[in-house]
């Protein structure tokens, strides 16, 4: 990378030992995030997005075997002992989760939950932490922050809860914010508000934002760089402008199918997305060839034999396919089985 990277992930691998099987959830993911940048990580459900970012944060259960490297400002996070990792968690990198109804402690006042985040990394008094929590509520545009401070999560709407989760994440003004499907559980109007809030805050606080979603539309509207994941691997990566520009240049049929699956505004919240036709591969027994071959109209024998590597075929644009689509109109998409 030309500029010094804030986060540099190299060949990240995560496997779960589950019932004698080994589930390979993440299989060699590399990307980097520059300070202040917005990176979108896109992929269908189960493609390893959540596992990747939890591996970076050190938040996976003990059944996970994590390999590879993730450097935050030069500090290697993978394999770092828990007490040291804790110094970075919440301080330099923070996370916003998918379901705001479940990511707040139901029996603790929201203000306390924010103040706790403030006090974890900084030596401030209870009163100072409280004042700061109210300030953070104001920062995430919570109406009546003083009053909201003493309320419980169930007294708030989904969007308001997500604002609280964001306030917690921002308590120590991290340089890296990972938003894991932060708007998926919300209704369409609220989704847009939370997205705007995240981008405003990113600007205000000069944070890098890793935006995880299964919605390529979000990536197209907000991200500068897009990473597309399938079966625990990155299959396509390019600057958003290059991928979705006037002369759309998506080269992977999987990415095109995701593009077709962009939800229209009428879709009710919480309904499952129309996904790419076919089933994702069994992560406990990945095929030797391309993991998408069985679902791909253009698949040939070579696809089933050897997996294509992710390579930079065009400056800035990488993909992993033996028979990519022609560059041109992204919507032209006749060759995906449905």
């Amino acid at each position: 990378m030309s500029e010094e990277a804030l986060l540099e992930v190299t060949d990240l691998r995560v496997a779960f030992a589950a019932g004698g099987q080994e589930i390979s959830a993440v299989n060699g993911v590399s990307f980097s995030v520059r300070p202040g940048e917005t990176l979108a990580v896109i992929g269908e459900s189960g493609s390893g997005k959540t596992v990747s970012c939890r591996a970076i944060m050190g938040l996976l259960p003990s059944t996970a075997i994590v390999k590879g490297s993730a450097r935050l400002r030069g500090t290697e996070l993978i394999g770092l002992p828990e007490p040291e990792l804790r110094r970075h968690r919440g301080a330099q990198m923070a996370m916003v989760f998918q379901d705001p109804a479940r990511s707040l402690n139901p029996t603790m006042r929201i203000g306390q939950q924010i103040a706790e985040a403030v006090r974890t990394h900084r030596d401030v008094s209870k009163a100072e932490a409280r004042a700061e929590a109210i300030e953070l509520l104001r920062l995430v545009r919570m109406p009546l922050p003083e009053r909201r401070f003493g309320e419980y999560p169930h007294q708030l709407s989904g969007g308001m809860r997500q604002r609280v989760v964001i306030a917690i994440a921002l308590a120590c003004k991290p340089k890296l914010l990972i938003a894991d499907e932060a708007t998926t559980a919300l209704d369409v109007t609220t989704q847009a508000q939370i997205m705007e809030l995240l981008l405003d805050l990113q600007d205000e606080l000069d944070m890098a934002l890793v935006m995880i979603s299964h919605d390529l539309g979000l990536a197209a509207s907000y991200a500068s760089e897009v990473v597309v994941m399938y079966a625990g691997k990155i299959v396509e990566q390019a600057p958003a402008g290059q991928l979705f520009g006037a002369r759309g240049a998506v080269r992977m049929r999987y990415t095109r199918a995701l593009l077709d699956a962009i939800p229209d505004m009428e879709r009710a919240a919480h309904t499952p997305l129309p996904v790419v036709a076919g089933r994702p591969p069994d992560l406990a027994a990945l095929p030797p060839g391309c993991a998408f071959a069985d679902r791909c109209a253009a698949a040939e024998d070579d696809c089933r034999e050897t997996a294509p590597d992710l390579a930079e075929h065009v400056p800035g644009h990488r993909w992993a396919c033996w028979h990519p689509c022609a560059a041109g109109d992204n919507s032209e998409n006749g060759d995906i089985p449905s």
Partner: protein
Amino acid sequence: MARSPALRLVGRRLGAAVIVLWGVTLLTFIVMSTLPNDTAQTMLGLHATPAQVAALNKALGLNQPFWVRYWRWLVQALHGNLGTTLEGQSVNHELAIHLPVTLELLAYALVISVALAVVVAVLAARRPNGIADRISLSVSMIGLSASPLVVGIILVIVFAVQVGWFPVQSNGLGGGLGSFFVQGTLPAASLGFPLFAIYTRLLRADLVEQMQREDYIVTARAKGLSPWRVLIRHALRNSMFTLITVIGLNLGTLVSAAAIIEVLFSVPGVGSDLLTAIGNHDSALIEGIVFVFALITVAGNLAADLLYAVLDPRIRHGSTNS
């Protein structure tokens, strides 16, 4: 104005409590009236003539029909008078002497069992299947399978007879805190150990479940909190609400176990008193004590419910939009 859900809960539970208490008094009365009525005979001795017995029965009102006697008792009881024992003492006075002893014993047993259960469950839940977890599992399996009586006998043999730290018999829990601990520890431990086992299993399971499944635990960890803080400040906090309910529900078992343990250790509480009263066919005393036992149980359940409603914000505010 809409009544708060907590207030509605109080109303419903209070109603249920009154019905249960009334049912208990009626049931005790029915059971007592099926036993041979030899109260007068007992009082007068074996040499009394049938005429003397009949006269005393009449004087005591024992020749009256069942409903009349029950009604009279109930009216008196509602005025706070539980009648007179065979020895001519008022039942109220008898209870005033013995009840505090039992309540102290119960409170001591509860405090020991809950405090130990919290500590052991947190240690066990920190590393599921770790050493602390395995030890706590074995210990609580013993507690779950042993009755307070068995625990009591073992404790007496080990700590009173063999080691000699505590007296075999308590003879009252009064006379200062030191004496209270000396006299009360073995009986309270006998009562508390099975409870400790139940609470430990319950808390440990609830803590582990939360630590592995709940998203708010991940949020707490993502803040950079230490695992202990997450466990205590977030998981334990929520588990305590469940524990309070279980404590309330177990109170009935605890009270009946207390009667046996009091006899075993000669603790002069209402439990020992009840057994003496049963031996003497002292129906007024039996009814009074059973009523008090029921009252403790019902009040405990009620208190647990209300405490839960007051403490748990999800109930307090009537959780709707989740």
